[in-house]
């Protein structure tokens, strides 16, 4: 999706300002600013444990930030709860890092959950859409009545993706959509994300370690380091930027400004 359409002049769908979040003494997000524009696909990259999932959960209202502001279509969501927050979330679709399927429900009921519960669709209609979405992620009808426990983790990921897109949401969030998948299926999922974003005219915020996948699905890429955005720019600039963080991260180098967090205290404890 690296065609040359410039997204930055479109309206801002998600505006994050001064976002901070700490767990005890550990500062995870530190005064972070980020804009995500309507119709764009933004990928956030960053090392393990840098707070990518935490960022996503703050935007979804699952974690309460210590300070800062998050606006969705101009509406402040920090501190919202109850039915107001529910109506905001009705426009969201989210794929969790470990899929988070409901294990008391069958596969198709998982996919149809948002349609039935949040949008009040009759079960028969929701079933039809669920089967459709499942086939889009490469799972045939015979999987529909299985339980999540009977699937491999890659399959669960695909069911999670089907569940995220089932309600045709305006905004999609993907936490590591291709981790744990084989390269072919990873490619399929990437295409599906690109296609969903195009078809639904959705805005997508994706988190990933997988640089090939990041390049395939993103219009812009942002790099998270020490609680801040260390670099953000159009995907095609990724190779040419002289930003030392990006250079080190995409080449997987040990030398550079990113400190690999094996500290002396950790070593002493071993």
């Amino acid at each position, binding site marked *: 999706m690296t065609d040359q359409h410039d997204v930055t002049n479109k309206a801002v769908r998600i505006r994050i300002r001064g976002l901070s979040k700490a767990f005890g003494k550990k500062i995870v997000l530190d005064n972070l600013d980020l804009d995500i524009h309507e119709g764009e696909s933004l990928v956030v990259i960053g090392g393990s444990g840098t707070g990518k999932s935490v960022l996503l*959960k703050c935007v*979804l*209202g*699952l974690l309460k930030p210590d300070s800062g502001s998050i606006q969705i279509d101009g509406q402040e969501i920090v501190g919202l709860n109850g039915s107001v927050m*529910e*109506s905001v*979330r*009705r426009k*969201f*679709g*989210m794929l*969790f*890092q*470990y899929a*988070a*399927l*409901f*294990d*008391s429900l069958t596969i198709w009921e998982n996919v149809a*959950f*948002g349609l039935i*519960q*949040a949008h009040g669709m009759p079960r028969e209609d929701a079933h039809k859409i669920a089967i459709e979405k499942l086939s889009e992620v490469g799972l045939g009808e015979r999987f529909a009545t299985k339980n999540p426990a009977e699937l491999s983790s890659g399959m669960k990921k695909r069911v999670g993706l089907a*569940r995220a897109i089932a309600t045709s949401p305006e905004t999609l*969030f993907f936490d590591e959509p291709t981790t744990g998948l084989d390269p072919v299926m990873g490619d399929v999922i990437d295409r599906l994300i690109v296609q969903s974003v195009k078809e639904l005219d959705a805005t997508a915020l994706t988190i990933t370690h997988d640089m090939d996948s990041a390049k395939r699905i993103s219009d812009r890429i942002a790099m998270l380091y020490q609680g801040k955005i260390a670099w953000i720019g159009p995907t095609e600039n990724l190779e040419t930027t002289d930003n030392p963080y990006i250079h080190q991260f995409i080449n997987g180098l040990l030398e550079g400004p990113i400190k690999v967090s094996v500290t002396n205290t950790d070593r002493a404890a071993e």
Partner: protein
Amino acid sequence: MPLLQPLGRLILSFFEIVGRLSIFASTAISHCFRPPFYPKLILKQMIEVGYYSLPVVGLTAIFTGMVLALQSYTGFARFSAESAIPNVVIVSITRELGPVLAGLMVAGRVGAAMAAEIGTMRVTEQIDALYTLATNPFKYLIAPRVIAGVLTLPILVLVADTIGVFGGYLVSVHKLGFNPATYLKNTIDFMEYLDVVSGLVKAAAFGFIITLMGCYHGFHSKGGAQGVGSATTNAVVSASILILTFNYIITELFFSR
């Protein structure tokens, strides 16, 4: 001074827990009365709480009734007061032993299972997933369980009362040589409306306590399998203690003059 510090901390953390629990309880209750309701989920939980607890509660009740008759006999025989046995059995079972023992058994069975299930949903992010699918877990997970607990425990206790009295009857008639007809007549004569009602009120309160503790500890569990394990333990222990505490309070309300 250093002695007072831990004491102060203990008192503060006690009030913190009471506060958090009250907020959780009032949120849960308010969602029990506001739509959307999930009748299918309530029914499923009622079967889980009531039907599947029947064997365990039934066995507890029958042996309790039997031992009650036996023990009363050895005591009362000394004063030639054996005829009071039907009275003792029906009063103790309906007032105290039926509700308390059923409550404790269900706390161990159902409270633990609820804490484990909801705790697992918490640590595997299923509760977060519920939120993102615009479904409030208080409505979808907690309210159906609490409603089922409050509605089902009185029925369960009514069954336990009947089986317990039957246990006493079995021992009295087949072992202690009572006349079946007289025993039954005495039992019915001694049966007080207020005793049964107080037992059922207790049962409803215990149903609330058990399901609330299971949901609360599950909902707030963290840190993987170990966290779920301690949530389960805490749910059973706190529910059992609260059952015994509220048993005293409700008894006081009903029977103190």
